């Protein structure tokens, strides 16, 4: 059975290691915060200018002057810090953030990512996505393996406008966990009950399968 959004987030949470500074994008990546294992200390960066993002506030603690990059009201934690947008992107561009987790519309087998624009549709803007993908030390993408019409989103080459080149390291989809290598998408794990053949069919780019592929453990 394919993984749902929460299960994708839960699997990605396994990649988060103690002591990391992590930037979470909007959508499934935001859910990752709910599954970070106990005993693992991470600091969440919100690119509008906060390190140490806490949970949503209780009603009486809502503060219009404290939001995350998705414009949601949030809280700080003991040890949090607040800074300007230029300091924030200095952290990102200067490769001080250890891990970036974000969504994508397409990923190519070379690790190119497209996630900001669909030609002919309203352009909302790239926000911080281009800065993040150009400088992150490690990028994990959370996405559906195929589009609604069944076409693959893991491609030889992206068809949509690019957000960044050769930057994605790992992809967790509803069907599989894959690593981007010099030779293509290397299959690491498959969703419970999903066969290698299913994944092959859903992957347009080069898929590398070596040995037995274990199921995702959640």
């Amino acid at each position, binding site marked *: 059975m394919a993984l749902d959004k929460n299960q994708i987030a839960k699997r990605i949470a396994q990649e988060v290691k103690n002591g990391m500074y992590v930037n979470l994008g909007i959508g499934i990546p935001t859910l990752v915060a709910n599954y970070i294992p106990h005993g693992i200390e991470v600091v969440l960066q919100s690119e509008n*200018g906060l390190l140490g993002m806490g949970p949503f506030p209780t009603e009486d603690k809502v503060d219009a*002057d404290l939001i995350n990059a998705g414009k949601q009201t949030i809280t700080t934690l003991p040890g949090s810090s607040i800074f300007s947008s230029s300091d924030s*992107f200095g952290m990102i561009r200067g490769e001080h953030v250890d891990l970036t987790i974000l969504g994508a519309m397409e990923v190519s087998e070379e690790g190119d990512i497209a996630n900001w624009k669909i030609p002919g549709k309203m352009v909302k803007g790239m926000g911080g996505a*281009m800065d993040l993908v150009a400088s992150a030390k490690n990028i994990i993408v959370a996405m559906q393996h195929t589009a609604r019409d069944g076409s693959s989103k893991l491609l030889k080459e992206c068809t949509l*406008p690019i957000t960044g080149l050769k930057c994605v390291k790992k992809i967790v989809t509803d069907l599989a966990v894959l690593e981007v290598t010099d030779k293509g998408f290397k299959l690491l794990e498959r969703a419970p009950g999903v066969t290698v053949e299913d994944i092959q069919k859903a992957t347009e780019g080069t898929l590398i399968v070596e040995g037995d592929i274990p199921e995702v453990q959640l």
Partner: protein
Amino acid sequence: MINKTVKNVQEALQGVQDGMTLMLGGFGLCGIPENCIQELLRIGVKDLTCISNNAGVDDFGIGLLLQKRQVKKMIASYVGENAEFERQLLSGELEVELNPQGTLAERIRAGGAGIPAFFTPAGYGTEVGEGKESREFNGKMYLMESWLKADFSFVKAWKGDTAGNLIYKGTARNFNPMMATAGKITVAEVEELVPAGELDPNMIHTPGIFVQRIFQGEKYEKRIEQRTVRQA
């Protein structure tokens, strides 16, 4: 100490004219200069180039200036959540230049710091890089981006003093500190204006040299875009 205080928002915006380039602080609706935006609406200046991370929502922030067709060009990083913006963009009434957010922040910082251009990896290999000089440093490709400056910068701070020193609160800081440095005339509106000497010099975020005019805003709505809460 030089006194930067002006009586009110009307005096603060004196000299703002059609066709000017303005910077407006804020991220979403957080930390926007609400009182200055209201005054821009009232005086009705038009053909403005507005530099701001976002374009407000339909009925608040820069969205209000768009409703009245006062904006000719928008330089921003993310402009969703605004139907009127979309309509004007698709009909060609509005010109838009989208920048990666970190590039936008740094262009403004560079403008205030006297750095005409810099190299960043953001946008290399994308349409953002079209027509721009690129160069390799240590095996990685970078794009040259240029500074941004404004005729007027409008920033919002939590506290300020009569010398123009500013302290921001929470994530309402965002683009305000850089914009304060990049305006020919920087107007700061604050929630609380105090006499010089009352703010601890160690706690100042924006030194008064960058601020030409300061006033206490009459009222702040501080609208929230996404009110997210958890159960107590």
